[in-house]
């Protein structure tokens, strides 16, 4: 859509700008402030320059956490996006069953994150949880508090359980917006199921799918509560993702300087990757508009 140039539109944006600036710019400046200073307590601060950034860039701990984080995000995107599309394709199109599925599928999305953690912590326990107990009875040695692989599987299955519905709901919305005429045309052309998906459904879903991928990427990259409740970052550091490590450093050990430097770099990484997604998305929007 071609937009009119109107500088007065700034007035409409102003409330958002002020509100978000209050919640974002001031705290962010506090973080910047900490990141260049050192403290020995009692609110005395000393200029430390870029020392903390240097230290964090050479800290193995941060690189390890970043590596685990990237792996986690990659795995859950690779599972959730195809699975979400698949579920959306199989959802009833209308009527009672459509509402029924929508309601049940939204359920995991509205459970507080620490309760999600609690559910899976209980569910996976060998003594009182259904999953752990069953696996144990079948003879699979499963223990998410001791075994690194089991811990990863538990955290990933939990995330798939928690968030696939979001991808599915967005994909479903995209599918619903396709006019029947498209399907009728495909039928006349005797298009196969696969080509209907490839040339009609997928392009029409592309917009909402980008949103889904962007949301899932951002949220998985800052995941904190769920793995923290389930594994506490363990065994060892095996599931210590970036946010968990950051909170450990800032609030557990009270190393404000390094934690602040860490925060800023963390934020920059997320911004950089999200910018790429966003640019792709807006270019796609433009193409769509023509």
């Amino acid at each position, binding site marked *: 859509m071609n937009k009119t140039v109107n500088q007065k539109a700034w007035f409409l944006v102003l409330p958002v700008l002020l509100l978000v600036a209050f919640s974002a710019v001031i705290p962010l400046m506090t973080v910047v402030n900490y990141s260049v200073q050192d403290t020995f307590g009692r609110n005395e601060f000393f200029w430390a320059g870029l020392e903390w950034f240097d230290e964090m860039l050479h800290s193995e701990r941060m690189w390890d956490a970043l590596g685990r984080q990237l792996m986690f995000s990659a795995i859950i995107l690779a599972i959730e996006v195809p699975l979400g599309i698949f579920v959306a394709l199989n959802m009833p199109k209308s009527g009672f069953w459509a509402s029924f599925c929508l309601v049940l599928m939204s359920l995991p999305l509205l459970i507080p994150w620490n309760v999600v953690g609690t559910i899976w912590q209980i569910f996976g326990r060998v003594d009182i949880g259904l999953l752990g107990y069953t696996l144990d009875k079948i003879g699979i040695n499963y223990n998410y508090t001791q075994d690194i692989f089991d811990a990863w599987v538990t955290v990933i299955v939990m995330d798939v359980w928690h968030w696939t519905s979001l991808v599915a709901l967005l994909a479903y919305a995209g599918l619903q917006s396709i006019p029947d005429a498209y399907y009728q045309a495909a039928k006349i052309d005797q298009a196969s199921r696969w080509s209907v998906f490839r040339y009609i459904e997928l392009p029409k879903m592309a917009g909402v799918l980008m949103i889904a991928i962007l949301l899932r990427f951002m949220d998985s990259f800052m995941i904190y509560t769920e793995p923290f409740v389930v594994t506490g970052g363990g065994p060892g550091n095996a599931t210590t993702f970036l946010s968990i490590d950051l909170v450990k450093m800032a609030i557990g050990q009270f190393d404000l300087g390094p934690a602040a430097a860490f925060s800023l770099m963390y934020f920059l990484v*997320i911004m950089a990757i999200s910018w790429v997604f966003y640019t792709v998305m807006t270019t796609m929007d433009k193409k769509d508009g023509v």
Partner: protein
Amino acid sequence: MPNRFRINGSAVVMGLYLLFLLVPIYWLVNMSLKTNQEILGSFSLWPQDVTFQNYVLILTDPSWYMGYINSLIYVVMNTAISLAVALPAAYAFSRYSFMGDKHLFFWLLTNRMAPPAVFALPFFQLYSSVGLFDTHIAVALAHCLFNVPLAVWILEGFMRGVPKEIDETAYIDGYSFPRFFIQIFTPLIASGIGVAAFFCFMFSWVELLLSRTLTAVDAKPIAATMTRTVSASGMDWGVLAAAGVLTIVPGALVIYFVRNYIAKGFALGRV
């Protein structure tokens, strides 16, 4: 016949998927109806000896049930604030181009991307210094950080789907901007507002890190009540499970009431 077969295939897929979603929740409900002895002592797929003791404890103890009320208060406040500021902004982004609009839009989105862990400590200091620590409004404002950008984003998408001719016709007919916006435009994007409200409610209700950091006693959310009580009194699995089940209820209610609306809202152009 192939048509019928395909419907059945879809039903099987959906059935399996919903089963996968519901079994862990069922297990939580199952545990909440057992006593601690039964949970730890024996293993059964359903409670042998149904007890509502865990729920009674939560619903009669103010330190428990106030957690739910606190959470609901700040979630509703947050949803109202987010929508109120996001509506005009989304209109501006969808209709006009102005200096710095693209940068501003991306800047807003970066806040949706900001990890709450980064902001936990600075938020604590900011809200303490302005005297808002441990109030509902503090949590509501803090959650605006990620909900306002999301609301702007969702609403902008819906508003772009409304033809611009409607605006122009209304202005020619002599409508002023506020009157046009409230009487004509808002009803057109009602489903968009519903979806945006749903998302704001959802993300504010499920967030724990910030709401826990910003509250101590008076506005403590239920999620925080759960973690603290558990660590203090050892593992009281039954009560923990019951509290978990009760946190699912408001969400389930919201979805239930807006279910047709959400289905319609998600359907975007087809309504």
